[in-house]
């Protein structure tokens, strides 16, 4: 009895210590990595004049404003603005504040340049969000009250740059005025604002900078209209494009007299055809026109005289002008030539000669140059040196100086569209383990150091050594598969159409490829990356082949645009095959079927609801036809509030070359559109493995989980409350949650939440759904859980039935049958808004689950599923407590130690992806947004392996001590025995 009690105590103690999965501070970076990005750069402003740290301030398409170190490309500071708060322009004022204009010209903020602290924020009354211009006078003396001018819509705001107060405001015109160009002649108080009213009227304003008084205003209309682009050629000539984009219109506005002069582009450039674009630039007397095949530089000699200076063939890019002195400006031209880039700098005073000419070798996977920003520095011999910041087609950012790429940032990773994982190659024979572990002595030394660390005996130097050993662990960064399945490749698809493979060990880019089919071309003007799927995962038959992934895209944003397929090798990024499909891509269904070469079968549903089978081989068709009667699919039409279920059928003769199947509608669910709109649908992960159907509850009772892969969770909200929080009152808001079987169309369960609204996030796993929404009555966020149990198997609990064989356990489960289900649900308050919701998955589904909640603060919180158990009650019975049921509380606890991201943030969090490791206890978690974060977590601790901080040395020490004790006691007992015998 005593022994049993002792054992019980021991087990209890062991288990009580395994509840939390928190991290010690010195474990940061062992299993996790974090990468910071900013996104595709739109504007860049250099700050290099003063001595000290040279920086470049950038704004990006991810709504990030950041200050980067010009020497290394590291981020000094960074702010991610709200989703709808797009940055229009960025500038530096007073030499110490960064000014950003955002939200269609309605918000102006100033940030402290050294540390990024917000200094002031001003809201401008703009009639309609439109193109807006920020004008920061550069020639003002620092110390004077500098004004920042914002031109947006039809008004001008002048703000003080020290505190953001509006000094004056001028309404120019109530019509649809769009200011195109603003400039201030040197040392003058007059601002020229040039723009268009509507599409055919040109207008020029002369505004007093100090008071906002309109000194002069002149208007003239042009009968063939403007396309809305204009470029300033000199102090009194502006050049615009007409509505057909085939004529250049030079407009002179000297002294308020407006003259138009049309020039047919083909007269200037005989090979011109199609449409031209004006490149926004501010040169003295020079104009850059983008005609489809090249960029043409024109000199404006007079109102009606244009002269070609240079034609730069595509692909190339040209920078804005950089004023060096009052008379001189410099600009950069970058031109592609295979894998090289020619970098030229010219002065506008001498256009025939180059000041600087360099050639740079460029990685071929970055695509074309999209934007160039030029900056100068003083060489030691007092001449000008130039550097350029280059934005590439794949959204990466490079700094080029002295013919070299000084640094580069892979900023395409800030806009990941989809991701998947791939196994690494198996370790080849011949690579011995000894090489990895260097020598036994080193290994032991390391462990002794660690032991010292755990015993708190180590000196600071040794602590540092321990940390270094742990961090650079060669083991985790190898390019081969490991036993535990921790090392994998994360294959991500970015919005730029680039596919990158990241190593889970340290997050480095193993390979990257800019897919040619996802680049702009004549056949496909606006390609759009959609998804990435596993195409081929060889394990038995095709071992010698590398796994590959399928990248799916679309030509344009419409659903009926033709689809794009590309198959990429997962080990080296080679593109095996890529094609533009003849049909559109609406849904893709990876089937759990593989052909003889282990390529996964995929069904592509096009816009006409026809199904296309891929890969298009006779082998795959054969396999598919056997399974076709079992394939069901559904479509959710959010706008029409309809969910329809389909199967597939063959109408007429099956064309073996085409493999097109027709849909057969089986059921449809129509939601009443006056009271409900579909807000969200969620399904179980296809590859999720459930360990057991039975759930043993208290008193040795059994409940059978209703496990069906066909469960669809649908949430609908009241149409009035489909907007953001704050737009509806509790009385007019409600939320319905449905569980639908997608084979039969049967609604398994429906529950209503009165006074609740979106945004809704949901995750479905095993036999449960967890969803997050906003409760307007309590004005708090809420999370609900629905668990669904199979009632028809309830009788099987009877032992006698099992013995006599009267159970129905062996009865086949059919999706057609209508099982009796019971549903349990419960709701809890949750403090934060949620950006993303996911659940851990493990290899065999034995380990308990954790929810991964991406909070509004861009952190990822791990919450044990036990907190979302509908069987929780205020006072659980003794047996329920033993089972692990937590007493019911009204809100879910947030334990800071259970943040997976610990003290880091995944800025702009958009998605959380979980992948099982081979080790049952462990899940790999990859979360992405503007930043990337990867870690591995063990929801019930690593019960199946020794933890990383397991002290082998201590074990060795214990064994040695035991052996010594054994020897001593043996000697003692010998002695004693001898004494006994003598007696």
């Amino acid at each position, binding site marked *: 009895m005593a022994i049993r009690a002792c054992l019980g105590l*021991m087990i209890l*103690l*062991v288990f009580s210590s395994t509840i*939390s999965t*928190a*991290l*010690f501070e*010195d474990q*940061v970076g062992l299993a996790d990595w974090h990468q910071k990005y900013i996104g595709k750069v739109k504007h860049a402003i250099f700050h290099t004049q003063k001595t000290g740290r040279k920086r470049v301030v950038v704004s990006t398409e991810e709504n990030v404003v950041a200050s980067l170190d010009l020497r290394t490309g590291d981020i000094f*500071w960074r*702010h991610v*603005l*709200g*989703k*709808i*708060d797009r940055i229009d322009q960025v500038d530096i004022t007073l030499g110490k504040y960064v000014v950003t204009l955002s939200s269609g010209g309605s918000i102006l*903020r100033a940030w*402290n340049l050294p*540390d*990024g*602290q*917000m*200094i002031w*924020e001003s*809201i401008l*009354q703009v*009639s*309609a969000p439109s193109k807006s211009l920020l004008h920061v006078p550069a020639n003002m003396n620092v110390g004077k009250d500098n004004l920042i001018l914002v031109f947006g819509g039809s008004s001008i705001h002048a703000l003080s740059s020290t505190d953001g107060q509006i000094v004056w405001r001028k309404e120019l015109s109530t019509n649809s005025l769009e200011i195109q160009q603003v400039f201030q002649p040197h040392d003058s108080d007059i601002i020229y604002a040039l723009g268009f009213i509507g599409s055919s009227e040109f207008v020029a304003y002369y505004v007093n900078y100090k008071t906002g008084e309109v000194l002069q205003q002149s208007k003239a209309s042009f009968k063939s209209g403007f396309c809305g682009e204009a470029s300033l050629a000199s102090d009194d000539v502006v050049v615009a494009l007409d509505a057909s984009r085939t004529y250049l219109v030079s407009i002179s506005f000297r002294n308020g007299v407006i003259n138009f002069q049309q020039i047919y582009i083909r007269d200037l450039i005989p090979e011109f055809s199609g449409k031209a674009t004006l490149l926004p630039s501010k040169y003295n007397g020079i104009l850059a026109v983008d005609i489809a095949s090249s960029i043409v530089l024109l000199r404006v000699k007079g109102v009606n005289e244009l002269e070609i200076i240079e034609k730069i063939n595509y692909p190339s890019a040209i920078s804005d002008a950089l004023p060096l002195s009052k008379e001189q400006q410099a600009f950069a031209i970058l031109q592609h030539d295979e894998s090289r880039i020619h970098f030229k700098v010219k002065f506008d005073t001498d256009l025939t000669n180059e000041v600087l000419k360099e050639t740079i070798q460029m990685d071929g996977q970055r695509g074309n140059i999209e934007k160039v920003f030029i900056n100068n520095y003083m060489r030691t011999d007092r001449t000008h040196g130039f550097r350029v910041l280059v934005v590439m087609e794949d959204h990466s950012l490079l700094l080029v100086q002295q013919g070299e790429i000084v640094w580069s940032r892979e900023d395409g990773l800030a806009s990941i569209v989809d991701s998947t994982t791939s196994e690494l190659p198996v370790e080849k024979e011949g690579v011995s383990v000894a090489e990895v572990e260097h020598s036994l002595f080193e290994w032991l030394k390391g462990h002794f150091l660690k032991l010292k660390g*755990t*015993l*708190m005996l180590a000196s600071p130097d040794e602590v540092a050594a321990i940390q270094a050993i742990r961090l650079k662990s060669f083991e985790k960064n190898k390019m081969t598969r490991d036993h535990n399945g921790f090392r994998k490749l994360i294959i991500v698809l970015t919005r730029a159409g680039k596919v990158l493979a990241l190593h889970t060990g340290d997050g480095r880019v193993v390979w990257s490829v800019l897919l040619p089919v996802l680049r702009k071309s004549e056949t496909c003007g606006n390609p759009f990356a959609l998804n990435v799927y596993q195409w081929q995962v060889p394990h038995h038959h095709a071992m010698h082949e590398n796994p590959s992934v399928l990248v799916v895209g679309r030509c344009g944003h419409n659903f009926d645009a033709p689809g794009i397929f590309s198959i990429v090798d997962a080990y080296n990024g080679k593109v095996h095959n890529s094609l533009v499909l003849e049909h559109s891509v609406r849904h893709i269904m990876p089937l759990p079927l593989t052909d003889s070469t282990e390529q996964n079968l995929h069904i592509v549903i096009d816009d006409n609801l026809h199904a296309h089978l891929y890969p298009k081989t006779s082998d795959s068709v054969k396999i598919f036809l056997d399974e076709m009667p079992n394939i069901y699919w559904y479509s959710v039409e959010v706008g029409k509030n309809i969910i329809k279920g389909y199967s597939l059928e063959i109408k007429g003769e099956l064309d073996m070359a085409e493999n097109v199947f027709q849909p057969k509608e089986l059921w449809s669910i129509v939601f009443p559109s006056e009271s409900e709109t579909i807000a969200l649908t969620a399904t179980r992960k296809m590859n999720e493995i459930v360990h057991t159907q039975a759930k043993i509850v208290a008193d040795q009772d059994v409940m059978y989980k209703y496990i069906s892969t066909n469960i669809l969770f649908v949430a609908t909200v009241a149409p009035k409350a489909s907007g*953001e*929080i*704050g*737009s509806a*009152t509790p009385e007019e808001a409600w939320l319905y949650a449905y569980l639908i079987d997608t084979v039969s169309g049967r609604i398994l369960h429906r529950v209503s939440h009165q006074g609740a609204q979106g*945004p809704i996030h949901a995750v479905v796993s095993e036999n449960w759904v967890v969803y997050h929404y*906003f409760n*307007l009555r*309590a*004005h*708090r966020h809420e999370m609900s859980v629905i668990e669904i149990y199979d009632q028809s198997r309830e009788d099987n609990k009877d032992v006698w039935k099992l013995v006599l064989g009267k159970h129905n356990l062996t009865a086949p489960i059919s999706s057609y049958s209508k099982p009796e289900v019971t549903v349990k649900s419960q709701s809890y308050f949750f*403090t*934060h*808004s949620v*950006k993303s919701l996911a659940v851990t998955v493990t290899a065999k589904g034995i380990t308990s689950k954790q929810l991964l909640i991406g909070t*509004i*603060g861009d*952190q990822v919180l791990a919450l044990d599923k036990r907190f979302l158990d509908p069987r929780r009650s205020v006072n659980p019975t003794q047996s329920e407590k033993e089972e692990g049921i937590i007493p019911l509380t009204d*809100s879910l606890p*947030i334990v*800071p*130690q259970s*943040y997976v991201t*610990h*003290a880091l*943030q995944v800025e702009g969090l958009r998605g959380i992806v979980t992948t099982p490791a081979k080790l049952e206890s462990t899940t790999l978690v990859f979360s992405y947004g503007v930043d990337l974060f990867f870690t591995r977590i063990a929801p019930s601790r690593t019960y199946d392996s020794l933890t990383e901080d397991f002290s082998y040395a*201590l*074990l060795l020490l*214990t064994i040695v001590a035991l052996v010594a004790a054994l020897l001593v006691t043996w000697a003692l007992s010998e002695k004693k025995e001898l004494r006994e015998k003598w007696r």
Partner: protein
Amino acid sequence: MKLALLLFVVLVSNFLPSSLAAPSSSGDGYAITGRVKVEGMTSKGFGASSKLLNAKIILNGGQNVTFVRADGYFTFHNVPAGTHLIEVAALGYFFSPVRVDISARFPGKIQAALTENRKALHELILEPLREEQYYEIREPFSIMSFLKSPMGLMMGFMLLVIFVMPKLVENMDPEEIRRAQEEMRTNFLPRSS
């Protein structure tokens, strides 16, 4: 260890005069001005301001995002009348979301309450909320923690068996042992009746 962390949310009803008098077409809303204040030094010795550098103030779950100024003030502009939710995202601190009611009937009347503990913010000091500690604190080595670890327990148990069990047997009465043995024997013998 726990330091006082104060959050003042000062709701000043200082609307843009122009927008109130004549609601313009773009923004006919009100302004919510508040203040986030973290007092004292944190346990790591950072100044309060550097901690708040990256603090974001989020309205209605991401509809609007703004940042705090150096003095801790923030403002949301053009917020329509109704009930809104403000959240503060600052790494290292736990802030309760704040429910803000802007009255439509009495323009300019704003009420606020913490949603976590339903505490009304009237003239407007929030109870100190907690500071978040994201890492476990490593306990210094102690003999107790070693004994509590599985390995220590196993060793303790082994020692117990080795040294105490024989003692238990020794301490038993010889008579009792004999009786127990007898009893066992009789139990195992087949009964013949």
